């Protein structure tokens, strides 16, 4: 989506066609990022709905990198949602895994399985970089960690994935 600022300007003017175009362009990478943070399909869709509604009513038009801003919003919403879920439902790791398997979406692919074995931060960095096409500098700003840590974690994660995927059979 090269014309993202233009789309956001049109959304600000109440153009629903522009919003639909924006949704179609951003739904997959944003959903992938959110899903890999929450590891829950229903929660991820809730987060995504809240995110798109927020963007519809107040699109980020006056920011340096709207794309990075949107991912930051998605990341913060996902993390907040997880935190709230833990406060109220006391979900633990096995509950989340069970729910994911029932939905039969998350662990469908071998690559997803491999990605889910990564620690949360490495998983988020890899997803933002490869699925969200964000720059390392932008990821560092979103996660509020040093650029060097992002680079190191990314390289480490890719090495792990390569090993896991290579040893699958």
């Amino acid at each position, binding site marked *: 989506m090269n014309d993202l600022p233009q789309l956001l300007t049109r959304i600000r003017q109440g153009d629903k066609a522009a919003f*639909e175009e924006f949704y179609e362009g951003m*739904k997959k990478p944003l*959903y992938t990022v959110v899903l890999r943070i929450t590891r829950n399909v229903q929660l991820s869709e809730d987060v995504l709905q809240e995110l798109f509604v927020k963007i519809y009513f107040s699109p980020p038009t006056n920011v340096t990198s709207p794309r990075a801003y949107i991912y930051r919003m998605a990341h913060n919403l996902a993390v907040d949602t997880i935190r709230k879920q833990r406060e109220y439902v006391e979900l633990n790791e096995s509950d989340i895994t069970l729910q994911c398997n029932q939905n039969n979406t998350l662990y469908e692919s071998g690559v997803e399985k491999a990605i889910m074995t990564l620690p949360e931060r490495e998983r988020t960095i890899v997803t933002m970089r490869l699925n969200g096409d964000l720059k390392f500098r932008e990821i560092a700003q979103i996660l509020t960690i040093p650029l060097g840590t992002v680079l190191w974690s990314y390289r480490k994660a890719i090495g792990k994935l390569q090993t896991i*995927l*290579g040893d699958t*059979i």
Partner: protein
Amino acid sequence: MRKLLGLLVLWLTLALVIPALPVSANAEIMSFEVYTINIANHPDDVGGAFFTGNNLCLMVLNPTTARNEQLRTQYGAKYAVSLDQITIIPCKYSYNELVRTSYEIYVILSSSDNQPWAIGISENTNCVEISVAEQSYAYYFLSFSQQYGDKVHVRINTPFIAEYGLSSSDQFTSNTTVLSPNTIAQSSRDIPPAEYPGNNTQNYPMPNSSLLIPWVMGVSIIAALSFLYWRDARPVRALNTARGTISSALVLSSRQQTIMAVKNSVEQPSHNLYRSIIEDIDKREKFSSYNDQKP
């Protein structure tokens, strides 16, 4: 990146290996210039010079009266002896010719014999002295006798080994310049180059360890780059695709393929999501307009 690393490794390997090939092939053989650095400097018609008591014996090839006088004057001044203390003895071989022969034999022995051996020029017997191990004596005796005749004298090395540690002055009194790799290297280190003016100073041997540091550095760089290349491009047996299927047991995967697989593993939300979002937006807009209309 991978291509660049590969090319860099290839270039470094060639740069290190190609110059080393001739060196390693003749690792034990020193050049003729280095070999002759500790050899006595005689004219071409002199077969050698040695002392018997206080008299200097000078071996001369085809001596003539005029040439004898000339050599007497030259060697008298050189060794600080009076002219009547110099005896001229006719000989068959020039000292320089013996040096060349000894170098030929040195090359043969360096490249073929693993047993202890030594080589030198005996100035009083006017021949090349070779000392070899007992088990290879017969072979060398036959082959060198056939090739060089009485110019070369082969013997078993038992009594000769003791001469390895001779100093340069001892060598002169024994009239045998012992030329083995060890003695030559030792003598070269002991004698400062200033005492050997001319081309000897230019050929002063460098210690072999001077090449060791760049060599080790080069090999280390190659190893590091090879590791990086391997880590970046190493193939693994198979790869799960984004669809969850194993593509093939024969398919090789690299770091790049892993990245591509992750890139392609994008998840998609349910089809109802957009409708839910639009409903939510409509609801909020209605609520907002209702609030605006409220008095």
